[in-house]
């Protein structure tokens, strides 16, 4: 049973980007809470799996192949969603390109690729979908980001800069759209499963010891918070990045 206020019954959500293979999990949380979900990315397989998951919850799903770094394609996607369901209530930006190199070895091309995927795509999707929210003066924008939005890490200048940019984008837009009843927030996730990232066991153990709750992040961990920020329950929350990090943000 879903507590009163958390329900997304009758809501339309767009999940843009399939960073870190989380599309299926994100779509599933939204559908469980009652939303119909449009999936916008280029990864066909992930989108089909996510759509099936949405249907398993008895909700509708549409798959719209989209390059989330192309404004034209995103606009077309948003029009397709609104012509199907007449509105978009929720946008989840979940693009994520992981990249680690010492600064002196980062090429211009690599830098641009990280910033384009992690930051510019958030701008493009939020602008194209936000236009439709603005017409109805109602909406929720939620961007999935990382503890590296606030904390530094060696060999991660491009990634940290892109995620820090998302945090400031979130604050500034939250103020800009506050009176239009559009809430803009982010969820910063912690260190994720080493296996999924292909990390060696050697790196993994000290990492787990470093995390106060003594385990790595799992995609399920952000589910309820995503639904909270997508629902009317968070009517007074905007401009925030809430972290789900197992406690690492409390560390010295």
């Amino acid at each position, binding site marked *: 049973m879903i507590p009163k206020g958390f329900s997304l019954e009758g809501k339309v959500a767009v999940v843009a980007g399939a960073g870190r293979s989380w599309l299926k999990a994100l779509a599933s949380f939204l559908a469980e809470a009652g939303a119909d979900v449009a999936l916008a990315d280029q990864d066909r397989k992930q989108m089909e799996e996510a759509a099936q998951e949405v249907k398993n919850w008895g909700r509708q799903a549409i798959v719209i192949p989209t390059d989330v770094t192309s404004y034209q394609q995103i606009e077309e996607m948003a029009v397709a969603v609104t012509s199907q369901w007449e509105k978009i209530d929720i946008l989840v930006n979940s693009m994520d390109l992981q990249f680690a190199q010492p600064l002196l070895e980062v090429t211009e091309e690599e830098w641009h690729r990280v910033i384009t995927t992690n930051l510019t795509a958030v701008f493009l999707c939020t602008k194209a979908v936000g236009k439709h929210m603005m017409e109805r003066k109602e909406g929720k924008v939620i961007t999935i980001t990382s503890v590296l939005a606030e904390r530094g890490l060696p060999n991660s200048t491009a990634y940290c800069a892109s995620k820090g940019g998302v945090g400031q984008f979130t*604050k500034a837009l939250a103020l800009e759209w*506050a009176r239009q009843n559009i809430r803009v927030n982010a969820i910063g996730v*912690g260190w994720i499963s080493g296996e999924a990232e292909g990390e060696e066991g050697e790196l993994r153990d000290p990492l787990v010891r470093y995390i106060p709750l003594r385990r790595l992040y799992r995609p399920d961990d952000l589910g309820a918070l995503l639904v909270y920020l997508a629902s009317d329950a968070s009517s007074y*929350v905007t401009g*925030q990045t809430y972290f789900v990090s197992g*406690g690492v943000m*409390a560390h010295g």
Partner: protein
Amino acid sequence: MLEKLTLDGKVAVVTGGGGGLGTAISLALAEAGADIIVTDFRPKDGESAAAEVVGLGRRAVFIATDVTKSEEVNGMMARAISQWGKVDILVNCAGIVREETGDRAGKPFWEITDQEWHLGIDTNLTGAFFCSRAVAKHMVERRGGRIINIASGFGLRGLRGGFMYCTAKAGVILLTMSLALSLGREGIRINAIAPGLFRTWQSKEMYDTRDPFIPVGRVGYPREIGALAVYLASDASDYVTGEVFAIDGGTLAGGSAPTGYAPVIPI
């Protein structure tokens, strides 16, 4: 996954439970399934909050407590634990902002008395320490428990004339972080909620004058804080500890310029 948001069978202690936010949090936790022990130093307000919880079909008792007195707090917590055999959730919501603490009292900083300072710090910061200390051993023995500290946006930013309040609430936030790091391995999670301005004990007219200064255009309603407390009290936030969740209508997102101020810079 969302069934984890339920608090069925849980017992929560809410300090300051008779106040605006404390009552709203008590009711939200009760709606999610918890039984509530309401504590407050104001019997009338505390009794009435407990009665509202009972009206929702949950169990509730009121225990009069002054959180600045450790013996009273220890006695309250012992009674709370024995009431239904356990305490799963502690919400430290007791606080004070009134002028008798010397804050914004219209007098110079150097005229704040020891007594005023202690009243503020003892209620807002030491009270959260006393209550957490009183329940922590019980939670560690049961290898489970959640503490939610009600901090404030003013624990992260300064306030003209707000010496005690800002200092105490910043202390609550660092107590939250350090306690989270200390008790994480024992299965205890400690988080803070940092509210902005909510319509609680002051007059409607006063809050009406504040509406335009909040980015979303209005002061918050106490019921709007409930769902966040339910989330942090439930298993749905299992991977969240040592965090500060601000809920403030956008206030902390800005603050460097007046709300609504749009600099016109040609680019």
